[in-house]
């Protein structure tokens, strides 16, 4: 599988990372190097093998469905680049 510049641009878009057009050839080439390395996985016979979901055999714990935390508006907003009137502020989303 070889990655061309338009695929690299699409991946950057999906990852929400701005990549300048002149950087795309180098990016595509790096992707190809890394994916070339990953291709070896194709040699492994994985027929009938389950994909790993948990590295330690454990059942996730359950707890009573009740509120255990909250009322921390100040702490939640303390690190926001732009917080106003108790909310996170972002550029206009809906016209």
């Amino acid at each position, binding site marked *: 599988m070889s990655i061309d510049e338009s695929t690299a641009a699409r991946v950057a878009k999906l990852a929400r990372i701005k990549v300048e057009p002149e950087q795309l050839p180098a990016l595509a080439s790096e992707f190809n190097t890394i994916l070339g390395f990953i291709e070896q*996985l194709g040699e492994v016979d994985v027929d009938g093998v389950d994909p790993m979901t948990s*590295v330690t055999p454990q059942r996730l714990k359950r707890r009573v469905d009740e509120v255990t935390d909250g009322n921390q508006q100040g702490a939640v907003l303390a690190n926001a680049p732009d917080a106003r009137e108790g909310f996170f502020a972002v550029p206009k989303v809906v016209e």
Partner: protein
Amino acid sequence: MSDLNKLGLAEARDALRKGDTTSAELTAACLTAIDGAGALNAFVHHTPEIATAQAKAADARIKAGDAPAMCGLPIGIKDLFCTKGVPSQAGSRILEGFLPEYESTVSGNLLEAGAVMLGKLNMDEFAMGSSNETSVYGNAVNPWKVDDRALTPGGSSGGSASAVAADLCLAATGTDTGGSIRQPAAFTGITGIKPTYGRCSRWGIVAFASSLDQAGPMTKSVRDAAIMLEAMCSHDPKDSTSADLPVPNFEAMLTGDIKGKKIGIPAEYRMDGMPGEIETLWTRGADMLRDAGAEIVDIALPHTKYALPAYYVIAPAEASSNLARYDGVRYGHRAKLDQGDGITEMYEKTRAEGFGDEVKRRVMIGTYVLSAGFYDAYYNRARKVRTLIKKDFEDVFAAGIDAILTPATPSAAFGLGEAWDDPVQMYLNDVFTVTVNMAGLPGISVPAGLDAQGLPLGLQLIGRPWEEGDLLNTAYALEARAGFVAKPGKWW
């Protein structure tokens, strides 16, 4: 007492309890050492006021006869751990200015056990790297030196390794996703253990690849690793993968008696092009364990070769998902926007400015392997290979193997700037350590010798799940026979 910063945890603890020194004195010695070690760039956020206050409180506790395991012992904390009110940036520009409102469970456990925090330690950005060269703070430098080159302390816990090896602190926390505790420990002549996945809570540790990440101690001896690991471990309801198992007294398990233990030597770890010195050290390590009464057994871990490529699917996939949270909305950096920019431009510009090249590379690789049409071919296949890698280990443990001995790294520390021609070349640093994360097992790196240039080399022991105590004891026997006492000459 002089040179208090050179003590290990056990020695300092015993001296404190005997009244031979105070935490205030220990802490002052470390702060002085840190002030004189700017050239190593190990400590990147200094917290002398916090340390001094904690030392004073610790001295009061010791005086009152209430001295928990880490009481009064000054340590460094990797920048990946959220520490309340203290910068916690994961070595990234995108978390510039972030001051956590909470304390990570592991650092909280250490502070509760009386530890003194000297500051935050340099690391590769988001723990993605094997040389500490992807950090927003610049490179951390290895205190070991053989010529005029500055050497890498390894990564990602490079600042932790450098600080412990240079005696800037008694011990430090690290985290290990593919080898980030064990590889830098080997490069700097110190001890580092990654416990079984689930032993340490991941809560409050900035996430890289959640199914692989584990915290662990980086220390000057195996005994110190046992002491500090016990203090770090706990069951934590805030991390659903944290194990609800009792934490043993690891230090009490250090008898040095490994008679009759079966130590496996995996043929697949004999890599093409491996330096002869590493091979020799490995053989010597096996001889040492045999000398201690262990039985050395040749074993096979057939899927070893595929661990690293599978890792470079799974870790980036999880990273792309975890790092989606850095969007410029809730914390950290937000890009300056141009007239007319909307929320998508805000995300794209913020992430382009905030992430370094290696992080971007991995996030995008992860995005690709998870994208429609490639999910099965890459991500699901890698998870199936991971099942097989884990089964390799289960098979040898079922056959009676107690621990596995391997080299820790394929080389000694290399020069900063020497290995970046090709990202895959850099990834090969983790070839011996990454299998352990893939299988969720405990692994420890013990300094075992010097190469011909005079640089430290480590050996790795891999243990059965949840049997860190037994693993530490085997490491203790190895440490005693290796007799590694070399320290880097001070040039900084």
